[in-house]
């Protein structure tokens, strides 16, 4: 068993310094970030909706059926913009507006894959691709399992 890390209490000097840092630290522009994220996130959703409707019209799919290809298209756009080096420049302003939708997931996978291309296909791209997205997948699967379990218990 790994020993639980013990938290060392802060000395007075450390405490005083941390208070000073907290007081003087420049604040992130939270309000501006939230507004920008709200707007850009909304735009991403509008594009997603547009693509869904397009698939419904062109391919004659139902709303439920058009969802998956639409998501795949959004992932493709996110990946393409990452590859072209545009995504990170957009995300600088958009922040969570681009990170929360599926585009952010695509960006985290593709940027990692690109970054570790030079370490080879197996030890680089293959293993480092999910460096950032790995936790999302892991905890997504774990959460889905428990939700499924609860669902099964309550239905039967």
């Amino acid at each position: 068993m790994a020993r639980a890390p013990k938290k060392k209490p802060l000395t007075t000097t450390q405490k005083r310094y941390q208070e000073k840092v907290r007081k003087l630290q420049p604040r992130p522009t939270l309000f501006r970030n939230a507004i920008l994220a709200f707007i850009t996130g909304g735009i991403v959703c509008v594009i997603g909706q547009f693509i869904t409707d397009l698939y419904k019209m062109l391919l004659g799919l139902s709303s439920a059926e058009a969802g998956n290809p639409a998501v795949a298209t959004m992932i493709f756009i996110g990946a393409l913009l990452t590859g072209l080096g545009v995504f990170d420049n957009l995300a600088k302003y958009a922040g969570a507006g681009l990170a929360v939708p599926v585009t952010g997931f695509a960006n985290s996978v593709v940027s990692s894959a690109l970054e570790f291309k030079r370490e080879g296909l197996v030890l680089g791209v293959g293993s480092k691709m999910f460096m950032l997205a790995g936790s999302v997948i892991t905890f997504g699967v774990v959460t889905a399992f428990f939700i499924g379990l609860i669902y099964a218990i309550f239905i039967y």
Partner: protein
Amino acid sequence: MGKKVGKQTFVIDTQPAIINTATVVGPFEGKGPLKEYFDHIYTDNLAGELSFEKAEKEMMLNACFTALTKAGKTPQEIDLFLAGDLLNQIITSGFSALELTIPFLGLYGACSTSAEGLAIASMIIESGCASNILVATSSHNSSAERQYRYPTEYGSHKKPFSQRTVTGAGAAIVSKEGNGPKITHVTIGKVEDLACKDPLNLGAAMAPAAASTLVQHFADTGRGPEYYDLIVSGDLGKFGHQLAIELAISQGGFDLSKNFKDCGLMLYDLEKQDVHAGASGCASSAVVTYGYLYKKLLDGTYKRLLLTATGALHSPISCQQGENIPSIAHSVSIEMI
């Protein structure tokens, strides 16, 4: 013979000279206000190489060979090569030393390496073991980002106190004899830990080390901040610089507000270039001191310079395991005598 004064300062009696220096920077740094003072500005972040690590090595080698050429020396005339960088196992320095074929000692002091190199070189010369020493250090924005932070194309918000790792390299030749600014005192820092944990806020983590080494330097030498024309820190950034000034007052009563600058604030145009709090990385203090300030010492603008380069001694692993970020700073007095 050199001696120790006070607690952490060493007087260098032989006063070795920095006979020549060379600096190279990446394209982004080449757009900054100090662009005229660098020997070479790369037009490509990859420097014509296949990876960012190879590019960083190319930059360090270029700086070393340029410094040698400018000083009119061959690698055979150099007794020792002291170098360090930010990459794991300081590969840039090791691979550069392989091509330079000069006996090599690796340094690791994170961003304090520029001052650590000068300090160790002058102490070795003082001992009489060597007469010509080449010191070098480098950092590369892309190779550092991928090791310490995120992939380059990953989209994320930067905090206002985050800093940009400098792409570039600096080299200097320290000699027992020769013309140039002389190294007279070195103050070797102690590792400080004031419980900072955020690896994106290194200015705050390193400010205590800068203040503690500076206060100790003034106490050991009996010189006040006013003795120097300029005191520079390596890469504290806007926020860390401000904290260091406050700490120097509260810890030692020294007023740094008049002649204390930060290389990390001089290298970029903070208004026009999107760098948040300023520059960071080994190359920040190296290219500014070995490039800009060295030339300003030679042309007489400054006569007495105190370089205090700070380094954060953390790794991504130590941060993930919840450790604080320890930091260090070394001071080197460089004077025109």
